[in-house]
């Protein structure tokens, strides 16, 4: 536990340092109120999805179909809304669809015993093909403002999506530390045999987390949709990688058993700060991926070094 506290503070320190550097480079524009809000809004989809991904990775799983689920949900609700479905119904359909897609992942992983990376790689391809089928290769544009409201609406001049994200984060921090299912997730990741013998229903938990993750991806899809105002067949491509990066930078162990929602939140903020800062300081955007990749390597290897020292 001490280790995570330390890690989270290191990353927070890193974020603050970056904010100062970017602010100096952009002569204050970076630290302006509107830009900070912008960074948060950009981070919302990653943060909400990272909650589900954190749970999955804690059980030593992984879900690379996240981006395709975001794309399929986003495209489906857009197409439906253009055909005149009332937006609140559309929201429900989107959440159910996300849950269903996640449930299907769990079916492959639990019932067919396919390794999570392989199962979700397969569904990543299948779901992406479905996006193209739903869209017919065309953009969806001109959706009703009500549908886009989750991502674009504001309350007291603050974007609604930020409130939504904060609510999700607070609830799931509570969920992971106090609720039985939350503790079971850690138990499974730490020692699956011990969890089984102490009566944890592993199958149920696996189904729960993948389905929940699917629902959370659907929420992210609404947030992205509201921000961009249009849905393309490529919507969400590469999104899963950003989410996984945020989660592992935030200290979740890819081998399972350790990880926190707070860590993933901070990891996602770091990713968002860097992406925004690179654009504002006129660094070629081609470098964003480079920085992200380097960051993952640095974060994990320092983790390994710290752990080695503690063992020694």
């Amino acid at each position, binding site marked *: 536990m001490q280790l995570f506290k330390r890690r989270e503070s290191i990353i927070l320190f890193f974020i603050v340092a970056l904010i100062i550097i970017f602010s100096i480079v952009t002569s204050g524009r970076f630290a302006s109120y509107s830009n900070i809000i912008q960074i948060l809004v950009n981070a919302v989809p990653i943060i909400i999805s990272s909650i589900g991904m954190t749970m999955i990775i804690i059980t030593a799983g992984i879900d690379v179909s996240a981006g395709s689920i975001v794309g399929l949900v986003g495209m489906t609700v857009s197409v439906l809304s253009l055909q005149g479905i009332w937006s609140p119904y559309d929201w429900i359909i989107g959440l159910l669809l996300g849950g269903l897609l996640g449930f299907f992942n769990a079916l492959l992983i639990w019932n*067919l015993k396919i390794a999570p990376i*392989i199962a979700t790689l*397969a*569904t990543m*391809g299948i779901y992406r*093909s479905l996006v193209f089928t739903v869209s017919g290769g065309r953009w969806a544009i001109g959706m009703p403002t009500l549908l886009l409201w989750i991502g674009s609406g504001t309350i007291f001049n603050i974007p609604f999506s930020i409130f939504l994200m904060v609510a999700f984060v607070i609830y799931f921090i509570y969920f992971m530390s106090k609720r039985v299912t939350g503790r079971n997730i850690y138990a499974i990741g730490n020692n699956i045999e011990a969890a089984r013998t102490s009566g944890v229903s592993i199958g149920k938990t696996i189904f729960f987390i993948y389905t929940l993750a699917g629902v959370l991806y659907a929420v992210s899809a609404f947030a992205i949709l509201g921000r961009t105002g249009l849905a393309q067949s490529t919507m969400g491509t590469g999104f899963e*990688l950003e989410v996984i*990066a945020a989660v592992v930078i935030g200290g979740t162990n890819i081998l399972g058993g350790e990880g926190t929602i707070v860590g993933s939140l901070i990891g996602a903020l770091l990713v968002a700060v860097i992406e925004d800062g690179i654009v504002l300081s006129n660094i070629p955007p081609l470098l964003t*991926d480079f920085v992200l990749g380097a960051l993952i390597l640095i974060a994990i290897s320092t983790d*390994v070094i710290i752990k080695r020292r503690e063992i020694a």
Partner: protein
Amino acid sequence: MINSIKNSTVDDVKSLEKNKSIALIFLNRKFLLLLLFIIIYAFFAVFAHNFNSFQNIESIMIFSVEIGLLSLGETLVITSGFGGIDLSVGSMLGLSAIVIGELIGRFGLNIWLAIIIGLLVGTGTGLFNGLMIVYAKIPPLLTTLATMYLYSSLALLVSMDQYGNAMPISNFPSIYSIFGQSNILGIPLQFILFFIPITIILYILVQKTIFGKHLLSTGTDEIVSKLSGINVNKIRLWVYTISGLLAAIAALIETSRIASARPDLGSNMNLEAITISVLGGTYIFGGTADIIAVFIASILVTMLDNGLFLIGVNTIWQTGALGFLLIGALILDLIIRKRSL
């Protein structure tokens, strides 16, 4: 001891004793794939116009080479265990391709020198993956996820012109097209001179050499292998490096075939390479590899893509079909294993 680990898990041995004849046929991945191959071939030959023509078969051969090489590299990596997987094969291909392209197209370097540098770059990227995994102890999934970003971003940087835009290179001299556009007795050169020899070399490497036995043993049980004096780190370093080299060779062939080098070449080949490898019987937790089966699987998948295209299925369903194929193969695995136990 290593011999007993060699090709079959304990479960397989048990099942063989129990139900020898059926198990022998069905546990043989090559037989299953050949059967599937014949069924798919027959289906498309009947329903797809022009599928059963010499020209089409030639193009299936051409298209199978690049993805086949990546799948072979992926197979070695997955076989080495410790969660071995290489998500960066496509990015290594892209980076090597653009390096070769820039050296020839923009700097006018001697072709052979440029190719050697390109191959070295690919090998170097693979070696870097290996070093991070072996010495920094970062799990392969994360290492290659990070380097996938790094290499594809580097490829974009290398291809940048003075205005900061990523530019493709396509002014290759005509002699460069020899690797991807020529044929020997009607059979594509890259198939005969690259794909088949590399497959045979890797087959020998895995099945007949000490290195191969050590590799299979490392993937099966790391601790036992260490205790038996196998240098596990060296084995892992080698497989990731080989994967990089194979990606660079694939880059050479692809840039020659399409006479152009783009930084995003190979960007969607990661999923396909892993699928083909698993379809070819590579056990995702390591320790089992069947190089010949992976060879067959890469032709099978290329043929499926080609056939689906010819009967008018939209090309966007290629990734979907791949996903179904992967799940189908694994379900088949499950049924066979359950039956034979």
